[in-house]
Structures are given as structure tokens and as C-alpha cells.
């Protein structure tokens, strides 16, 4: 313990010394950064796993984006750019992708990274024994669906190593969003020898062999994960940071304090209670950007009275003043939502509910009219239960919405908060009448949102929505001959969906971070992914 303390102090002193001397060094040798650049990053919660095929959350994704690189990777702006693959060819029918891997692609232990590694990794990702949560987003690859279902051996997957530097992937049909899937962590390569040797323990420091801009040196559960620059990374010369330390920061108020005390360069989030304060008092460090997600109240269509009454559902949707809600209650600069698919998809015209252009006064008037037409009034008020999981934000929003419904319509709401897993089960078993829910896109494509409400989507379709026309349009959009009209068809599908009002959109998410002015190279993007290879620290 003594030793550890002494070492810590020494590091701190060295850093202070180095920081103090930087201006001198840069005068002596301009352009050469001598100081060790260490980024301290608040990262929400303890990662559940750093196996890219098994992980599901944002926390894990942040670290994995630094440890691994897929065939395709993301630029600082979130665009798909060549990763391990230098370039790729797409067959004329859009079903065969041939990737040309970098000649100098290497693992962090110096082993060459070859097409065989990708064959192994994709097979592992869809293998039922791996039981990867995200395996289904690989279903566009030929036979992936049957393999995940355990109906076909993994070697039947449509992937092939043509030669050590040529990797070929065969798809079921043209899939315009496949490059987005390939930059997701489910598509990251893993080092076969390491995985086979260490089993569940292969991600530990000392064991882990990865191929990203950084490699793991230390992992103390619930305390920190430390990665250092990987000298074998193909673009190592442009990686400025020497080290990144990620801290689990479950208590966001404490995370903000640590940031203010200079212990962190970047926060994972900002507590909702302090967003306004941060915006006013630390404006230059407060970053608020749109995020590819929607917060909504889902209607259980299998229960009455909401299930069969479009008028009632519409009245409820109309009576929510989303401007007041985002302005006064959530306060995070969220975008009032009038659609299901969030804005930000290239080539997709944002769809909106028909009342989007009305003023709130007009909406309230229409809401009252529809409410009365549905057979409700002061003598016969609508009584509903709104289910949410215990959380400060959900609670505040539920109180506000219930109050709006009460004021405008006279509806009597019961607010029910439940513990997270109980809430999930209630929602899955469709015990709710109305429940809060949210969806964050994994890759930027409308299908990622729309497909949830296919009539055969099972528990994922938590509205119990079933409209053959909607199903038909999504099937249409997937047909190879419609690849050019795909976005138009998806737009039609969303229009049908919104008209049926199986859910009440409330707002589109934003993400907030506090970012030290020393941090450079942090670019806005809708997926909110900011790999460390693009970030550097300005010495102040």
C-alpha cells in the first residue's frame, strides 16, 4: 500500500513537472511532443465484458473501439472509413463484398492479422455457443440466421478467406447498411490462439491480444481500465495519446465533481439536475449533441380502452406539450419528437405525425375533442396506469406528462414505478397499459427502429402492434429489386406506423459530456463514438 501510494505521487509529480516544462520543450523542438499524454475518461459503469462479441453496452463499446478495429471503422465524425480493410469491391448485385486487408495489419503481439482471423471471428460471433446478444445484426450474411438458430454448422457462414489478405463476405441480398454493421463491435476480430488458450479469461491484461490503436495493460474491476498505445497499429504514428484510463463513474454527480477538480478530462454524462447549471457556469466545457435515439411511451394495443381507440391514443399524444417538457423538465436540449425514427439518417425524409405543425393550443383543442368523441369527459374520466422503471428522469417526465393529461383532458393517471427487471418483465408480458421506453440505434438506419414493430418481432414489439400493411412494406424494402427505392418504402412504412399511433414519441435523445478544453479532436457524431486514436491533449 505504501509503495502504491508513493508511486502514485511520483506519477503525479512527474506529470506536473512535465506539464510545467512543455512550453520550453516546444520552443526547443517544435512539433515533437515529449510529454506522456494520458487521457482520463469517465465511463459510466463497470464494463460487463471486453469480449467484443459478447458485450452490449455503451461503456464496453467505448473501450472496445480503442482496443479493436473492424474491417470498416469510424472516422472522428462517425463516417465509415477503411479499417483493417484498405478497400473493398462490391459485386454488381450488391451481395458479395471483397475486402482487401492491409498488408501491415498486425495484432498487438506482432502476429500478422489475416483474412483467416476474420473468418474465425465472424463464425465465433454467430456461433450459438458464443450466445452473442448482437449476433442477429449479422443476419444479412448468408446462413447467419440458420447458424444462430443452431440449424446449420458455423462453417456454412457466408465468409471466406480468399488469400491471407483478401476476405470475402456473401450476403443474402443487397444490404446498404452492412458497412455500418461491420464497424460495430460484433464485427471486431478476436485473436484465435488467445481465445482458445484462455477461455473466459482471454480479455484480461496480460492475456488479451487485440488489434486496435491501444492495448490493455491493467483492469481493476470497479476501479479502472488502462490501455496504452499499440505500437503495431497500422496508423500508430498518428495516435497522439500514450495512455487512456477509463473510470467507472456510476454516480454522475460525483463524476462531475471529479471533472471540476481536474481528475477527469471527459465525463460519461451529466446528471440531469445539473445540466442547466453546467450549461450556465461551464459553457465552454459543456457539450450537448443529438443522439440517435427516441424516448417514448408505448401503448399496449392488446389492452382496452387504448387498444381499439385511435382517438384516445391520439388525444394523449396531442396533449403532451413536448416543448415545455424538454425545456423545463429534462433540460438537456432534447429535441421534441414527432416521429419514431430520429433525425440524422442520410437519404431518409423525416416522417412526422400529422399534428407536428400545429401549435400546442390547437393540439390541446383537438385532444379535448377526440377525448370527448372517444366517450370520456369530466363525469367519466379516463383512468390509466403509467409504468416506468425507477429512475429520476423517468419519474420527472411521468409526473409532468400525467399532470398535462390531467389538466388538458381530465384523465386520472396512476404512476407506477418498478424495479428495472420487474418493469422489463411486465412490459415483455404486456401487463402494462402505457409504459415508458427508449430505443437507441446501433447503426444509422431506419430499419433498426422500424423492425421492432414487425408483427412477428415477439417481445421486442412491446406495443403488440400488428399491421399487415406495415409488415408488407418492410418486406418490400428488403427486396433486392427495390434497393434504390428502399428509403422511400421505409418512409411509407413509418408514415403508416405513425398514423396508427402505437406509441407516443416524446423526445429524441441528446448526449451530454463535459470535455476539458485540453481535449482536441473530439468531433460531433450522431452515434456518439469518439475513438481515442483521434483525440489528443493540448498542453496547457
Amino acid at each position, binding site marked *: 500500500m505504501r509503495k502504491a501510494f508513493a508511486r502514485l505521487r511520483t506519477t503525479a509529480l512527474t506529470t506536473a513537472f512535465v506539464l510545467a516544462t512543455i512550453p520550453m520543450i516546444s520552443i526547443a523542438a517544435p512539433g515533437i511532443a515529449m510529454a506522456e499524454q494520458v487521457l482520463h475518461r469517465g465511463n459510466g459503469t463497470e464494463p460487463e465484458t471486453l469480449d467484443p462479441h459478447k458485450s452490449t453496452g455503451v461503456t464496453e463499446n467505448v473501450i472496445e473501439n480503442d482496443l479493436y478495429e473492424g474491417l470498416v471503422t469510424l472516422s472522428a465524425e462517425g463516417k465509415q472509413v477503411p479499417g483493417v480493410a484498405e478497400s473493398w469491391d462490391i459485386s454488381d448485385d450488391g451481395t458479395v463484398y471483397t475486402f482487401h486487408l492491409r498488408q501491415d495489419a498486425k495484432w498487438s503481439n506482432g502476429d500478422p492479422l489475416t483474412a483467416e482471423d476474420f473468418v474465425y471471428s465472424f463464425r465465433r460471433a454467430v456461433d450459438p455457443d458464443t450466445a452473442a446478444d448482437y449476433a442477429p445484426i449479422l443476419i444479412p450474411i448468408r446462413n447467419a440466421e440458420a447458424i444462430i438458430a443452431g440449424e446449420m454448422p458455423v462453417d456454412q457462414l457466408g465468409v471466406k478467406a480468399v488469400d491471407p489478405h483478401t476476405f470475402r463476405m456473401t450476403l443474402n441480398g443487397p444490404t446498404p447498411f452492412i458497412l455500418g454493421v461491420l464497424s460495430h463491435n460484433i464485427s471486431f476480430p478476436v485473436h484465435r490462439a488467445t481465445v482458445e488458450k484462455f477461455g473466459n479469461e482471454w480479455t484480461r491484461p496480460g492475456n488479451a491480444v487485440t488489434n486496435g490503436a491501444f492495448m490493455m495493460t491493467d483492469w481493476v474491476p470497479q476501479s479502472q481500465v488502462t490501455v496504452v498505445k499499440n505500437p503495431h497499429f497500422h496508423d500508430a504514428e498518428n495516435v497522439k495519446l500514450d495512455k487512456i484510463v477509463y473510470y467507472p463513474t456510476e454516480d454522475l*454527480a460525483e463524476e462531475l465533481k471529479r471533472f471540476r477538480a481536474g481528475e477527469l478530462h471527459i465525463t460519461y454524462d451529466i446528471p440531469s439536475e445539473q445540466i442547466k447549471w453546467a450549461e450556465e457556469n461551464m459553457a465552454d466545457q459543456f457539450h450537448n449533441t443529438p443522439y440517435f435515439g427516441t424516448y417514448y411511451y408505448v401503448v399496449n394495443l392488446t389492452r382496452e380502452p387504448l387498444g381499439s381507440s385511435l382517438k384516445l391514443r391520439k388525444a394523449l399524444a396531442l396533449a403532451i406539450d413536448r416543448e415545455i417538457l424538454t425545456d*423545463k423538465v429534462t433540460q438537456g436540449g432534447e429535441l421534441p419528437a414527432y416521429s419514431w425514427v430520429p433525425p440524422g439518417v442520410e437519404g431518409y425524409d423525416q416522417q412526422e405525425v400529422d399534428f407536428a405543425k400545429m401549435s400546442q393550443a390547437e393540439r390541446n383543442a383537438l385532444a379535448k375533442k377526440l377525448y370527448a368523441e372517444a366517450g370520456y369527459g369530466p363525469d367519466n374520466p379516463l383512468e390509466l396506469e403509467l409504468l416506468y422503471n425507477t429512475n429520476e428522469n423517468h419519474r420527472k417526465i411521468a*409526473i409532468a406528462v400525467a399532470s398535462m393529461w390531467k389538466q388538458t383532458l381530465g384523465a386520472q393517471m396512476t*404512476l407506477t414505478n418498478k*424495479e428495472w427487471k420487474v418493469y422489463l418483465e411486465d412490459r415483455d408480458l404486456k401487463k402494462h397499459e402505457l409504459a415508458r421506453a427508449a430505443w437507441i440505434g446501433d447503426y444509422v438506419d431506419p430499419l433498426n427502429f422500424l423492425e421492432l414493430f414487425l408483427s412477428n418481432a415477439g417481445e421486442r414489439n412491446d406495443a403488440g402492434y400488428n399491421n399487415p400493411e406495415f409488415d408488407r412494406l418492410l418486406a418490400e424494402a428488403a427486396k433486392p429489386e427495390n434497393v434504390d427505392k428502399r428509403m422511400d418504402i421505409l418512409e411509407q412504412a413509418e408514415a403508416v406506423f405513425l398514423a396508427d399511433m402505437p406509441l407516443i414519441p416524446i423526445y429524441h435523445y441528446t448526449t451530454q459530456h463535459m470535455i476539458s478544453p485540453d481535449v482536441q479532436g473530439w468531433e460531433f457524431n450522431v452515434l456518439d463514438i469518439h475513438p481515442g486514436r483521434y483525440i489528443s491533449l493540448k498542453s496547457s
Partner: protein
Amino acid sequence: MTDTAIPPGTAPTEEFAGRSLWADAWRRLMRNRAAMASIVILAAIALASIFAPWLSPHPYDEIYWDQIDAPPNFALGHYFGTDSNGRDLFVRTLYGGRMSLMVGLVATLVSLVIGVAYGATAGFIGGRVDAVMMRFVDVLYSLPFIFFVILLTVMFGRHLVLIFVAIGAISWLDMARIVRGQTISLKRKEFVEAAVAGGVSSFNILRRHIIPNTLGPVVVYVTLTVPQVILTESFISFLGLGVQEPNTSWGVLISEGARSMETTPWALIFPATFLAVTLFCFNFIGDGLRDALDPRDR
């Protein structure tokens, strides 16, 4: 040690002694100024909680959209300011007192009745009975409380009584252990052995000799249990069993206030002060009662 002087087993004497015990105690409690002041303050808080709607111009669930997170404002009648939903904190703090005081009361009763009886019985009988009874307490200590609460909500839905069941289930364990510890020591004391030799029934020995002599630590421990359960209630609410919006409790208000102590300190300070004052009152009343009931002092 006046107790040992009373010939055991004579009913009229016991009756008489019983009456004088309580009358005596009450007289002594009246003389304890800290305790009496505390009783008055506690009563005032309880009454204010009950009559909260008449003390404030604002309903406890009304949202004032232009008064979100507003500091105390006497002109508008928001004496304690408003919360993050723009609701009046004065009336909410008083409302919160209803739940918290009730939880405190139930925990006190359960801990006194079950905890004391259980602990005294185990300690006095001893041997195998004691072993089994105390191992049962060990089991209850170790079981994951969260699942107990979740199962209650799942099986019975959300009901006020269930909060008390959940609180009651845990509040007596420490008490049982403390009373048992005291009893084990007491039963070797001369006056108890004398009573046993004199043929007094076990029940009467427990009631007349053992339990009165454990009152000191018992009263102190009750005052330690009350704050724990008042805060536990907010955790039970988190799990979906406790108070339900728009209702509230001090535990819930304080945990909300703690999240924004820097930006809206009033949301923390007022409910926390009410809790602190209540706990101090419990404390002084407890000490006063202990002094008043001390059998050695008579």
C-alpha cells in the same frame, strides 16, 4: 434492587407494583425538560403532517411550470421553495412526514414487541432453543433483502401495509440480539436466581425481572433503528414497494435533494432538518424514558 425485596408470586403486590411503576415513571418523565420539549416538538411535527393541506395554499401535487427548482419565496407561499417538477416543497415535506413518522412508529413497535420478546426468550431459556432461535436470526440477516421486497410486490402488488411488513421484517433482528445478550448476563444475577429458586414462573420472571432490566439498551437501540428504517423506506420505494408518486416521504425527498445539493440546496436542507429534528426528539424522549423506567432508580 427493590424487586428482589417483593415476595414473589403474590398477585395483589404485583398489581400494586405495576401501577406504581408506570405512575412513577410518568412523574419522572415529566421532570425531564429535554424529553418534554421533544414530545411537544414531535407532536407539532406530527400534527403539521396530518393537517398539512390546511397549512399551505398549495396542493402537494400541483405543478407550477414557471416555478421549477425555485428557491424559497414567501410572497408566493413557497416557504421551502419548489422541487424539480415545480411542486411546493413546504407542503411536500409535511406530507412526507406522514409516511416517515408512520414507518418510524411501526419499526419501533415491531422492534420493541418482537425483538424484545424474542431476544429475552432465547436468552432466558438458553441451550438448544436459544441456538435454534438465534440461528434463525442469522438466516434472516443473511438473506438478500432486495428479493424479499421484490417478491412482496410481485405477490401482493403495491399496498401501504406491505411497506410495514418489509420494514418490520428487518427492524427487530438487532434488537433481538441485544436483548438476548443482556438476558444471558442477567439470568445469572442474584435477583433472578432468587426468583427462579422462589418458584416464579418463567413468564413472570421475564416480564418482571429480565425485560425491565434490559430497557436501557433497548430504548437506546430503538432510537438507532428509527433513522435506519426511515431511510430504508426510500430504498423500498426505489424497488417499487414504498410510496408512489405523487406521494412522498422524507427519505425520498432527502435522496432527491442530495442529488442537487449544490444547485438547489433547499430541496435537501428542509426535509433533512425535519428528519434531524425528529431523530433528536426520539433520542431525548428515549433517554428520558430510560431514566424514568430504570428499576434501579426507584
